[in-house]
């Protein structure tokens, strides 16, 4: 039996070497530190199981107040504020990727531990504050019968909803609290497998074009490159005709899109690849160049080659654009919204809020907060500043931020939380709850 023990030793050593912890290198800002690739036999996993908030609230900086304005939602993701101040919340959970490998089976069971047990609502909920006190007076189902809705846009009097498999248009009458009419299909969206199912949505300033973020069908091409046709791209769609084209590519999972208020340029937050170590690859925020290729799957942050893709394509690697701004590895950025014209005031006047859903695949958890990326002259300037924190407590997740939306006319930031099934609203303490400021148009 002694020899059996000796034979088992290398196995134990492997397992011990399998949970590398991050070394705390700086991975935010314009030039993140990118460590060497580390490939562990057992990837590190640290799930934060859900826990109730009780009487606690997420933490916001001094001078700000946070309140829950909607509870008992069914997996809230992205939000939209209509011109009359009504808030729309897309609720749902998509993806129907088949179990292809023994690993998919095991990973699915593990990841489910960190999610809300609630079934996705497949609907849009409307939240109305009738008297302007910041509280919700009406919470009602606005559109039902959807299929994992995620991206929302309001363009020329119509509401656009990006389901996991198609883009729908709903006619909207001012003040409506329910749309019973079936949506008009603008175009089908790539939905085969749908490993990354979320379809983020943004409209150009003049409303003539819609942009849909379509995530990759794998971590790093392990379902074969045939499955990656029209994946890891941002589509530009003509809402009038439904015609589409690839606007930018190589963006692994563009989970939120928004136009900046300064130069009216398209920006995306994207989730980068896994299993190269706890500090690879940082998720990012970037302006999206027309025709740009951002590396996935062949390389990341410009020309750092990923050896897991075969055959490799050096010509594509050479073309890869380095993203503008790193947010940190595995933070799972899912929300993006801009604030300008004084924004939320103080350190949060000019820049982008980013919702970070939080990691599950490194031993020390990252993300689980909303950060603010300060901008100057339409470009990121400086390190991200924590804005909403406290989602983690003793290794449990009381909430996980998804979509964020800056409600400019009312000076409020909205945060969707898909573990607490809550929408949070943050305002400056003591500010008039409803400020009519024509200088602050809804973006």
């Amino acid at each position, binding site marked *: 039996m002694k*020899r*059996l023990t000796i*034979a*088992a030793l*290398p*196995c134990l050593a*492997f397992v011990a070497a399998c949970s590398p912890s991050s070394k705390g290198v700086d991975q935010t800002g314009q030039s993140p530190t990118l460590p060497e690739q580390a*490939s562990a*036999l*057992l990837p590190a996993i640290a799930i934060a199981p859900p826990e109730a908030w009780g009487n606690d609230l997420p933490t916001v900086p001094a001078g700000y107040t946070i309140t829950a304005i909607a509870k008992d939602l069914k997996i809230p993701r992205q939000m939209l504020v209509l011109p009359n101040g009504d808030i729309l919340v897309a609720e749902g959970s998509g993806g129907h990727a088949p179990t*292809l*490998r*023994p*690993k998919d089976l095991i990973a699915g069971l593990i990841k489910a531990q960190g999610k809300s047990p609630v079934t996705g609502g497949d609907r849009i909920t409307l939240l109305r504050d009738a008297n302007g006190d910041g509280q919700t007076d009406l919470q009602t189902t606005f559109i039902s019968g959807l299929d994992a809705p995620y991206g929302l846009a309001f363009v020329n009097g119509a509401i656009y909803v990006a389901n996991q498999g198609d883009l729908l248009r709903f006619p909207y009458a001012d003040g409506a609290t329910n749309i019973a009419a079936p949506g008009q299909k603008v175009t089908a969206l790539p939905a085969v497998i749908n490993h990354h199912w979320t379809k983020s949505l943004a409209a150009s300033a003049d409303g003539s074009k819609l942009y849909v973020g379509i995530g990759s069908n*794998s*971590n*790093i*091409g*392990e*379902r*074969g490159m045939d499955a990656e046709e029209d994946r890891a791209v941002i589509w530009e769609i003509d809402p009038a005709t439904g015609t589409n084209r690839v606007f930018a590519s190589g963006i692994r999972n563009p989970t939120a899109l928004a136009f900046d208020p300064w130069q009216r340029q398209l920006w995306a937050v994207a989730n980068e690849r*896994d*299993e190269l170590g706890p500090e690879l690859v940082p998720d990012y925020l970037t302006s999206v160049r027309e025709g740009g290729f951002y590396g996935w*799957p062949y390389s990341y942050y410009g020309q750092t080659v990923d*050896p*897991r*893709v*075969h*055959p490799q394509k050096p010509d594509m690697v050479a073309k890869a654009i380095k993203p503008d701004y790193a947010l940190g590895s595995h933070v799972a950025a899912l929300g993006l919204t801009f604030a300008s014209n004084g924004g939320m005031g103080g350190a949060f006047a000019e820049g982008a809020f980013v919702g970070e859903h939080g990691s599950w695949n490194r031993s020390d958890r990252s993300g689980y907060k909303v950060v603010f990326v300060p901008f100057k002259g339409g470009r990121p300037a400086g390190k991200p500043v924590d804005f909403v924190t406290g989602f983690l407590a003793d290794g449990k997740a009381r909430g996980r931020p998804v979509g964020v939306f800056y409600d400019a006319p009312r000076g409020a930031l909205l945060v969707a939380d898909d573990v607490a099934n809550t929408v949070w609203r943050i305002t400056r303490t003591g500010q008039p709850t409803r400020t009519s400021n024509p200088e602050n148009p809804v973006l």
Partner: protein
Amino acid sequence: MPESGVHAAAPASPLHAILLAFPVALYPSALISDITYLQTSVVQWTNFSQWLIAGADLFAGLLLAWTIASLLFGRARHARGRGKATLIVVAVMFVLGIINALQHSKDGWASVGTTGLILSIACTILAIVAAFLVHSRTIVREVRP
């Protein structure tokens, strides 16, 4: 009371032989599938390998339990030298098989590589060696009147 004479019995019970048959069939299949993946880069081959290795590991684990039990309580205690050799081969095969499953669970081209190929070769050889050790002997008992 058995009849007098010389009795020959198969050393492995049918159940033991069935458990052993899985690693013997599945590890070499995974090796062939690995080689095909390395030659074609078509991911379905590494997916095949992963299921083949997972199946082989499952039965290798059961086989290991059987081998230990049989060494302690069963027929193998009549042939302890060989029984121990079998145990070591099966144990090493199982451990390498588990490491190989983890290696193969890496994504994309990293799933096989030199490490995966070497581990698949090692498991294949060990499975065949285990089969020879178990099946190429008979237990002969003489019962005298």
